[in-house]
């Protein structure tokens, strides 16, 4: 706690009044990418905060009056796709199917929102359809309920054991954004494990790519022997099954594939609720493709149904990851909402979903100091993500109370002003200089580096100075610290003080 108080006091106003008279032609270069202060966190402070977070539950429960409302829920492991053959540790579902026999399929949807260090917002949609059936045995699977028929037919016709396909637009910036939940390369990527009953894998692979190309409206039919490989060490099966003979594995990428609306529409069609209800309402292509990064994927694999792994289920995981760049310079405050990101708000969960949740990652800010999430929720959840314990605020859409009185959920995240403020006024040629002001909160014992890139432009012949060997002079940057102390702003001149200490 003390460390945080301390860091709060270390507010610095970095005023970079850049009188770049160098007539930068690059007026249009946005300050978003390059002109931003990159606070290099002290590793010590990071570990400190995670330790603090680990002991948080007790602290929080003491503070909260309504202890019952705050429920800690063991969330399903996000990293189970990391080739862990350990059985699924899913949370017990709360729904009780009493009157009718329990259906053999199950649908879950969730949205994870994570504010990134760079100020961007990472939204990750996960839709999971589990179906207790067996495509592998001889009897034909033909009656579909939640599982999409087109994919089921593909699995049974081509004897697919595992199928992973992703369409990505943009490039994931790990340095700025951290690790994604599931990495995917730009363009289209497809890798498939076939069952060992397939005799002519190459022929099956060719037909499969053609069919998938029709299903997803993508140029997957350009996958041929020239861009197909059989990795022998990587791309091990993610589901159950012990065959790892890489003769049955095919991998191909199409890096030039451009992902757009025509790929999103068939992807949405695979969802039981389509885009009519539930989280998929938010998936509007005009907003989704106006983003820094967009990746949609379909993963099909066999998974265990129970602890002993006696029965097999098929899992269809549809994921959509998107990073929005909502940073607008000059406004002083950063905020976003579901409506601002997706131009929609949520009104209901998909009625077919057994669970429908929104997680907001508050690991980096457990006390709500940097940003504020509204409406506030009492539910918290912890999960291990890529070996890192993270804390989430949880919104359960299956409960009516989540939507409140207005019957719609529009999550807001408002950064507190202490988070930072960037004001940038670009220069005009021969009229005015650049102005870049940044309000940065610096952690203690840290190094902050501000770099500014600029381009040089040609001068008119009259503009050359008499001594051009000097180059151009750039005005100093100004750092002013907002120290909460009476010393800094003593306007009372009546007191007897040495002159040097009063301004």
């Amino acid at each position, binding site marked *: 706690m003390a460390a945080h108080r301390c860091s709060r006091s270390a507010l610095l106003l970095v005023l970079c009044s850049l009188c770049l008279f160098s007539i930068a032609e690059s007026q249009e270069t946005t300050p978003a990418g390059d002109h931003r202060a990159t606070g290099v966190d002290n590793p010590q402070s990071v570990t400190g905060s995670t330790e603090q977070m680990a002991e948080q539950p007790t602290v929080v429960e003491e503070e909260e009056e309504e202890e019952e409302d705050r429920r800690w829920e063991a969330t399903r492991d996000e990293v189970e796709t990391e080739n862990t053959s350990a059985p699924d540790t899913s949370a017990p579902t709360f729904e009780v199917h009493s*009157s*009718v026999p329990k259906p053999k399929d199950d649908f879950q949807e969730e949205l994870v929102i994570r504010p990134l260090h760079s100020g961007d917002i990472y939204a990750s949609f996960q839709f999971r359809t589990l179906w207790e059936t067996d495509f592998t045995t001889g009897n*034909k699977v*033909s*009656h*579909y*309920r*939640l599982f*999409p*028929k*087109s994919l089921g*037919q*593909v699995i*049974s*016709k081509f004897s697919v054991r595992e199928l992973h396909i992703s369409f990505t637009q943009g490039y994931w910036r790990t340095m700025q954004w951290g690790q994604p939940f599931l990495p995917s390369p730009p363009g289209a990527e497809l890798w498939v494990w076939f069952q060992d009953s397939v005799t002519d894998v190459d022929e099956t692979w060719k037909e499969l790519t053609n*069919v998938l190309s*029709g*299903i997803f409206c993508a140029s997957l039919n350009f996958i041929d022997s020239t861009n197909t490989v059989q990795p022998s060490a990587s791309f091990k099966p993610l589901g159950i099954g012990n065959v790892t003979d890489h003769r049955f594995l095919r991998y191909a990428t199409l890096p030039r594939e451009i992902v757009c609306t025509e790929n999103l529409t068939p992807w949405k*069609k695979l969802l*039981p*609720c*389509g885009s*009519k*209800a539930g989280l998929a309402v938010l998936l509007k292509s005009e907003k989704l493709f106006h983003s820094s990064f967009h990746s949609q994927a379909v993963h099909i694999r066999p998974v265990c149904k129970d602890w002993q792994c006696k029965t097999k289920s098929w899992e269809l995981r549809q994921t959509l990851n998107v990073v929005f760049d909502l940073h607008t310079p000059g406004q002083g405050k950063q905020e976003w909402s579901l409506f601002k990101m997706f131009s929609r708000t949520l009104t*209901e969960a998909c*009625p*077919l979903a057994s669970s429908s949740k929104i997680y907001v990652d508050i690991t980096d800010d457990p006390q709500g100091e940097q940003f504020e999430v509204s409406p506030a929720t009492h539910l918290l959840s912890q999960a291990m993500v890529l070996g890192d314990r993270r804390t989430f605020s949880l919104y359960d859409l299956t409960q009516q109370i989540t939507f409140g009185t207005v019957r719609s959920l529009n999550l807001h995240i408002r950064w507190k002003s202490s988070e930072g403020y960037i004001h940038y006024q670009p220069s005009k040629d021969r009229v005015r200089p650049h102005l870049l002001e940044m309000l940065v909160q610096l952690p203690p014992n840290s190094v902050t580096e501000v770099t500014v890139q600029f381009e040089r432009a040609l001068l008119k012949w009259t503009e050359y100075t008499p001594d051009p060997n000097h180059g151009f002079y750039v005005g100093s940057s100004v750092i002013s610290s907002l120290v909460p102390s009476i010393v800094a702003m003593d306007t009372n001149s009546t007191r007897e003080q040495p002159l040097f200490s009063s301004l």
Partner: protein
Amino acid sequence: MATTEVERRRGQLAALSIAVVVIVVGVPLWWKTTETYRAWLPVSQINELSNLQLQLSADVEVVFARGTVTPEQQKKVPLTRTQDEEHSVDEDTALRYRYETRYRTATIMEEDALDQPTAAEADLSLHTLSECPCGSLVVYVIPESSSLLPQDVDVYIGQRRTALLRIGGQIRVGKTLDLLLAHLEPRIKQVLQVMSFSHTDITAALSDRVRLSPGNKESIADSMRTFKSSPGYEITFSLLNPDPKSHRLHWDIEGAVQTYIQPLLTKLASVANFSIDSQTLYYAMLGVNPRFDSSLGAYTLSPDSLAHMINPVEARLGSNAASSNPVLNFLLYVPDAQHSPLHIHDSKKQEVPTNAFHSPRWGGIMVYNVDGFYGPEAVFPVDLNINMAKVMGVFLAQLRLLLGVQSPNAPSGFLVAPCSRTGLADWELDRLMWSRSVENVATATTTITSLAQLLDQIGNIVINDNIAEQVSSAVTSLQLAVAELEAGNLRFALQYSKEAILASERAFFDPSLLHLLYFPDDQKFAIYIPLFLPMCVPILLSLLKIVSDARQKRREKQAKKD
């Protein structure tokens, strides 16, 4: 002077030799290397097929029961008669029907069977006595006094391949056999038209080959309703639930398919392969807004609006990824709670009792109202079980129509046995097989002849060996199918005609045919001219010069001589 002459001579020789090399080596080489590979096709046999002479042979056995023929007549039977009937459909297509009728008297066992109290029982026990092959019929002639048939019924058509025919009152026992047969003949023909094939069916099946003059509206609608003959069909049942928030629907489609649809399809297995699947589509809306009829307190769909229902739904149905066979869609639409009940009205503004309709060559849609199953105080979502017997009854009828199993309009005095559990009588299957065989033969011949025509017209197309192979096998299968039809082996005829259609389609749609199809002559010139023109111009010019020189020399010689 002499040196220049030598130079000229040498130049001429050089030009000549280059020209000779170009013509002797270059042209054949160019010709050989740019040749398209065209495998041999059985053109003469294909041309024979374009002139189609189809003969359909049906075997009929007429069995006289006790009391229908006198002992002296009995001595003359068994005897066999053959009847031919020829129709010329158009200049290339001719049909000939051959009915081979064998007359005999009933055996003792058959007599016993005919003594059963009802016609249905008699039909069953006659069937157990003798298994008659596909495409043939047995007509039992029973005396007028027989109590098997009701008073006003003369002919009973059973579920298998047997019919009972009551001998008319005016033909009394004791007349000559010829007279008796002459009397029976038109009746037997009527029976044949119902149970085997009729001319209208066969000409309708030939529609792919022969452009028929439009007949009456109804027959066109009939012929357009049925799916085209295909070696396989995909049947998809879709439950459309536009309102999963209110209705939680459960349908036991698996059991219903096993109980109601599978017996029919098992019986039809010889005609085509069927695969069945089902899906549930949520939030699937109709494309039309039903009108609220306050007098009925219900929403109604008029027949005009039905046509607009299918397209928006079809986007959700999804295409079949696994095969390219035609898909028969059967949709069960459960209207949402706000728009219930929903009724389909016919053109006379009357409620359609089944609340269903079908679209030709597409499938059927049934509206299933559930608002009666829960009260106004029900808590949503309501769990509802769908009565599959009711639904499948409608879908089964639609399936029969779409597959072309249609009951012919029986003439008066005919009694057709009600449908059995399989939903299809043996003779109905025969009818379908007759028309499907003819249709397959017609389609395959059209495909093969037009492919041959196309290949003949466009010389650019490469004909690979596998295409030639497919064409040959299609032609062989076609010939076999026609021969089997002639011999009356319906099952084999259908089998061969299916093989023929498969092979011909595979040849016709082979992608390798397209490679050089759009490679017209002007593009060839565009490729060749930059290569050949610079090479040819000097050669041609020097050749011309040589020729003109030679001519001038000859003229000079002539002048000298003169």
